[in-house]
């Protein structure tokens, strides 16, 4: 595992701050089917999917902490959930490196589901004073669907910003060459 470059860390930090403030100032104020799109777990999961488990976990923790501090929520809840999401996405990349076009959609949906269910579990563990409606389940399902729709543009944005600063990955280079040349080097063709 090589240490991430300063440029990559800088880009992740800047992206995190911009996404969190954009979320709080704009996205949260536009309800879609009665729920709000949440870009923050998507950011953690896509950083993990592009940069690996270590950066995914650290970004998840930092973004979670930023969200909890800025919104005056219980400190540690978002950090815990986003750390796990970022780490899981990073391990997915390191072990499987999925390349299908639907991968960002499925990974984004999974991150949204883990985030929404994770919040529910932690809040129930901490104790909820107010009565809970069964509509909570509907809200979670709609939230996952809405976040999944937002996952594709978010993936495109995160990839566009982070990939130029990524060190060249030999596995990906090999795969790219195999894809563009039909699996053979031009020199070895008959």
């Amino acid at each position: 595992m090589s240490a991430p470059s300063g440029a990559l860390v800088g880009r992740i930090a800047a992206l995190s701050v911009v996404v969190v403030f954009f979320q709080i100032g704009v996205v949260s104020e536009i309800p879609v089917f009665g729920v709000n799109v949440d870009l923050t777990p998507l950011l953690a999961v896509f950083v993990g999917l592009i940069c690996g488990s270590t950066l995914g976990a650290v970004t998840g923790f930092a973004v979670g902490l930023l969200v909890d501090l800025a919104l005056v929520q219980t400190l540690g809840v978002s950090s815990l959930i986003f750390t796990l999401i970022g780490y899981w996405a990073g391990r997915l990349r390191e072990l499987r490196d999925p390349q299908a076009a639907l991968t960002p959609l499925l990974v984004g949906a999974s991150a949204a589901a883990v985030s929404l269910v994770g919040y529910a579990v932690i809040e129930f563990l901490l104790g909820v004073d107010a009565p809970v409606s069964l509509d909570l389940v509907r809200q979670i399902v709609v939230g996952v669907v809405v976040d999944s729709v937002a996952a594709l543009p978010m993936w495109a944005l995160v990839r566009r910003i982070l990939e130029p600063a990524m060190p060249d990955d030999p596995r990906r280079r090999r795969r790219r060459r195999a894809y563009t040349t039909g699996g053979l080097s031009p020199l070895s063709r008959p």
Partner: protein
Amino acid sequence: MHDKTVRRRRALLVLLVVLSLLLLTAYFGEAPGGRLHSVQRAFLTVVSPIQDGANKALKPVRDLFGGVSDTFHAKSQRNELRKQVAKLRRELVGDQSEKRSYRELLAMFHLDNQLSIADYHPVTATVFGKSPNLWYSTVTIDKGETSGVRINDPVINGEGLVGKVTLAAPDAATVSLITDSTVGVSARLGTTSATGIVQPKLGDPNDLLLQYLAPSTQPNKGEYVVTSGTVTSHGDSLYPPGILIGQVTSVNEESAYKSVNVHPIANLHNLDVVQVLTSALGSRPSKLSRLAATLPPGQSPSAAASGEALASTGAVP
């Protein structure tokens, strides 16, 4: 080399998870004035000017999306509002004569010392941040301690009750909305003296629950729910009496106490400008708040204060 990498990666994960759990435990266990809350307050102080600036810059984007969303609902809302206007106009005619009689009676029995919203020194603030989370219904406003905003101050807008201040920094404050799980408001049904506590229903941000109504209460669909001017627990916010909270949508009779579902009047999804009722130190609302902190839950400080005043003037035995 590989083993070392794996060990380092796992150690980092464990460290971050443990750190999150420690933060969570410490924050949950400490008092609102504790160290971590102070860190949050300091953070809000630092980032509020940035957030405020970003909010102003991004307002056109928000308005564009908000405008599209509003257009979809405009037609159905217009028809509904026309019906409401016709109904309210009929009610207004009847109420005007009753109001005159009511004022005369208040003056006759020396009860015309009720507070108006202006007595609470309302401070107008702009909302510049909102939580996206199902579990936290909070907004951040651009006025704080320097404008006289303090923790527990009630927050309203032109439509009705919005929430209360839960954290105040010098130039910003966080408001927990009435749909937040931590907020409970002492309320009464508009046409009766029946009181209860309004709480949110988690998972349904368009629905509140007015609970603990006496079994003999006869609530009607469409009836308005207003603040009662009492507190629900020690140290809770004293909302001035008569602020509109919502409208009854249905009645539940399954428990020993009656409860009703209430649709909030204020559009909490689209808050732009709000007013914080600050009640400056030494003012009558401020004294009433202090009195409320000493009373058992459910008792009205206004009534207690009026009672004291009447007793001192000899108007009551």
